[in-house]
């Protein structure tokens, strides 16, 4: 307890601990005129393959620019987002950092990221992509890759039980009917689709029906369509009764990408959500068995297909020019492109992707396939608005209580709607 209290405060005061970093930067400033050596700090999240590939790319940059060396820090997703706020609080975010679409608004709104609009990305990144990524007319992150959300399915077992594969642009009605039909053909203990308790699944549904996203306007507008909410979750309630989705107790024990506990790799559920960036991990757990299809669509479309991983530069960096030059190089240099491969999804630069294409592995092709299937019906990527992280957790817990039969859908709706509106009012008053 005491330790926790100390930890809290230590993190608050971590400015002192990172002093070393700052000193180094000041040293560098002194050398600036003489074009002396510089150290760029850089931080990213990801799996081991990405760490190795990125370190290799950094070495290549140092070979090409002998005055630049790197101080890399890399970790898993959770650790990254725990560390970043403490660095931000002490104004010691690394010179270059990986950014995600789910968080970039929060960091931009707090002035932590440098405007990169003046970088010339002509011929490297599709101008439409850049337009899409601008926040208040400015670009705060260089897109690294194309990513898309879709659904992976166990094609081997579907064939085995004589269930047709889902087809591109299936509607939500078709998706639900497919699940009902598949139930009839599957043996006990196997389920066609997984249950859902997270906000994003319902947000896909709501937006595909042409309604506005749950959070819009930077979190100032909150829209939770009650009719759609009731329809969506009543469908799943019936599915639980008909064993079309696994029982809540089983669902709570699933752990994605765990060889034994992954809902799909364990052979229990026939489908699950997957992205271009993540489907390769699933394919490695069950080689040759994974097929992909885009998200179910409604009148407005469905799913998303766009860049969600960026490189940004810290607004407090002392090496902004060097950092900007580096981030541009990162998506331009062919040699770097080869070293990085598809460790961050499909490279945003078409030239680099063309070079890699002939040698793609099956797991990488799957990601590309998912992207191609999703792109024409895709809706924008909706991330939680700044300040809504707690609401995201609360949504999941309230819906879990529904799946365990501890509360009604309507009761969950009321609580989720109330908190969302409160947060929106708070965001509006700022």
């Amino acid at each position, binding site marked *: 307890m005491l330790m926790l209290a100390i930890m809290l405060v230590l993190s*608050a005061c971590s400015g002192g601990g990172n002093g070393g970093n700052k000193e180094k930067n000041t040293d560098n400033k002194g050398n600036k005129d003489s074009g002396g050596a510089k150290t760029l700090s850089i931080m990213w999240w990801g799996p081991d393959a990405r760490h190795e590939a990125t370190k290799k790319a950094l070495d290549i940059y140092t070979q090409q620019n002998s005055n630049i060396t790197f101080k890399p820090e890399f970790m898993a997703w959770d650790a990254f987002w725990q560390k970043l706020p403490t660095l931000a609080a002490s104004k010691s975010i690394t010179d270059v950092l990986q950014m995600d679409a789910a968080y970039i608004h929060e960091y931009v709104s707090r002035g932590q990221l440098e405007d990169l609009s003046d970088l010339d990305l002509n011929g490297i990144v599709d101008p439409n992509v850049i337009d899409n990524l601008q926040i208040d007319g400015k670009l705060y992150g260089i897109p690294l890759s194309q990513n898309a959300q879709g659904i992976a399915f166990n094609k081997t077992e579907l064939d085995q039980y004589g269930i047709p594969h889902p087809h591109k642009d299936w509607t939500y009605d078709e998706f639900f009917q497919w699940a009902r039909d598949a139930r009839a053909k599957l043996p006990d203990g196997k389920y066609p689709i997984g249950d859902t308790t997270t906000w994003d699944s319902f947000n896909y549904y709501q937006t595909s029906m042409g309604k506005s996203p749950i959070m819009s306007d930077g979190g100032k507008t909150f829209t939770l369509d009650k009719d759609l909410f009731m329809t969506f979750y009543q469908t799943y309630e019936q599915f639980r009764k008909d064993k079309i989705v696994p029982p809540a107790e089983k669902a709570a024990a699933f752990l994605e990408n765990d060889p*034994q506990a992954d809902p799909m790799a364990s052979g229990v559920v026939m489908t699950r959500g997957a992205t271009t960036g993540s489907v390769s991990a699933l394919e490695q757990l069950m080689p040759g068995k994974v097929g992909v299809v885009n998200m179910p669509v409604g009148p407005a479309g469905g799913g998303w297909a766009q860049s969600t991983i960026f490189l940004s530069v810290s607004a407090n960096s002392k090496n902004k020019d060097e950092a900007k030059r580096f981030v541009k190089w990162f998506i331009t240099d062919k040699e770097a492109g080869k070293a990085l491969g598809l460790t961050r999804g499909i490279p945003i630069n078409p030239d680099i992707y063309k070079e890699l294409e002939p040698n793609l592995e099956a797991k990488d092709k799957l990601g590309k396939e998912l992207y191609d299937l999703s792109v024409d019906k895709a809706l924008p990527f909706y991330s939680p608005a700044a300040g809504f992280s707690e609401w995201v957790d609360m949504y999941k817990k309230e819906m879990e209580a529904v799946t365990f039969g501890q509360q009604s859908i309507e009761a969950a709706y009321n609580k989720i709607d109330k908190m969302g509106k409160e947060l929106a009012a708070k965001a509006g008053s700022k």
Partner: protein
Amino acid sequence: MAATANTASGNEIEKKKSGGNRKKKGAHHIAGYVFISPWLIGFLLLTLWPIAQSFYLSFTEYSLLEDPVWTGTDNYTKIFTNDTTFTKSLSVTFMFVLFSVPLKLFFSLMVALALNKNVRGMNLYRTAIYFPSLIGGSIAVAALWRNMFGIDGYINQVLAWFGIEGIGWISNPDTSLGTLILLNTWQFGSTMVIFLAGLKQVPQELYESASVDGAGKVRKFISITLPMLSPVMFFNLVLGIIGSFQTFTSAFIITKGGPINSTYMYAMFLYEKAFKHYQMGYASALAWILLTIVALLTIINFAASRYWVFYESDGGKPK
């Protein structure tokens, strides 16, 4: 006999020491502080100052990304009047403490009694039984627990031999907290070692004279072992309560606080507020509330101890 003699001479040494210090008072003050300065500086800068800071932060709204904003007692008001998660996590934690502390005390005392015998190879048994506590609240233990109590875990496989269909002990909101209490009980090693040391201190002649008076095993346990062990038991109780209130790792790794908050321990709530939702001010207020609760319970414990804890040096009677 030997034990009593030792204590007596120990007391004399203590007295001499303190007397000596009193004489040298003043002269060596500065030297003393210089000698303890490495600790003192560490304590002031890395412990006391952060604690003071967290007290200040508990009256602010602080997202880490922006400067703290003074909000008075807003955090505390919200916690006490309008935060169902606070009530839930507090009640989960109280349940955990209520069950795991007595269970662990009882279990470790039984094991200590079993290990307090003169049998060949006793050291080997002691090591083997203490071993699980060495691996502590680690990730490996959490993984082990998942494999045991998971829906396809070993427990359910064993139950299946008897035709019983098990449930997902960890993923069922009714039983998940129970599995964590069991885990905490299973890690009885350090408590057990302290009990064992206590048992070794009980003078053999008490048992001998009781035997002469015709006391049986149960009688000896109730009238000699338990009273003689009461200071050790008190120590274990206080530490057990404090430790249980801070339980974090097992809930964080095994159940992630779920399903539906059924294992959402207070420490985990506090952690998520701070490092997931970036509400440092709120989290600091939660930390101070926890400190207050634990302090109050400890005071109550000490107050109650006079009625049941027995110190030989006090002349053999609880006050």
